[in-house]
């Protein structure tokens, strides 16, 4: 790498400032390098000498600290959103698993010939309890008696 080359100097500086993983760093540097090369070709095509074009392309890209800082902000926000999505998915998977267990449990007495319970007991109360209750489709599929709603449904003033 030539330390006098402004392209290499900027790319090395950005790589040094970035606070991201190895793969992300490699991709970012490759994209920035391509960007400079495109800009240089463009400028050279309009008659600017290559050396001058490289300086201009590097200037347009901005300074290493600003680029790295912007990546730090956007990667942190995106990571936080991803984490939130994963947590939501996990929560729904747990709810689905609980519904499944409840449904299977409701099926057991019928399979053994015993009389099914008149109601499926949902442990807990409030909005979570209403989510645990089987849907019509699940109720049909698993032949689950209707859930007792009194006191376990979603309060009318909450969404």
């Amino acid at each position: 790498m030539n330390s006098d080359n402004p392209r290499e100097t900027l790319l090395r500086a950005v790589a040094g400032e970035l606070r991201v993983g190895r793969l992300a760093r490699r991709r970012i540097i490759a994209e920035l390098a391509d960007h400079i090369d495109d800009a240089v070709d463009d400028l050279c095509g309009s008659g600017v000498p290559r050396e001058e074009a490289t300086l201009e392309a590097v200037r347009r890209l901005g300074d290493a600290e600003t680029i790295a800082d912007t990546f730090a902000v956007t990667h942190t926000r995106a990571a936080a959103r991803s984490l939130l999505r994963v947590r939501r998915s996990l929560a729904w998977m747990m709810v689905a698993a609980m519904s499944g267990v409840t449904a299977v449990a409701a099926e057991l007495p019928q399979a053994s010939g015993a009389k099914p319970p008149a109601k499926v007991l949902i442990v807990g109360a409030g909005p979570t309890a209403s989510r645990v209750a089987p849907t019509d489709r699940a109720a049909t599929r698993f032949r689950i008696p209707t859930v007792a709603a009194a006191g376990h449904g979603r309060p009318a003033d909450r969404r």
Partner: protein
Amino acid sequence: MQGLSFQGQLEGLILAVLAEQPLHGYAIACELRDRSGGMLDVAEGTLYPVLHKLEKEGLIHSRWETVNGRRRRVYAPSARAGGAVRERFESWRRLSRAIDSVFVSAPRSAGE
């Protein structure tokens, strides 16, 4: 609402540019500059953090492509991008109207 941050507006602008055709980073920078008559001359390096963010949010996707022997990361809108562009445009119009109304209500002598 994206508020006054230029970063927030940049997301909408990039989505609007990509709505027409898939582009690589340098082409996006050129489109922004050309379509704004040279007004939006952003530090081009700051486009990439925004592109990566939009990709992580599932609004765009990208892949390496080789064009004329040079490898480029090309970005394209996802199915959700159209709705996001409309949402950001509405947000911008609300903000723009709010700012207009403050300027308009200022005494005429304020700018003199």
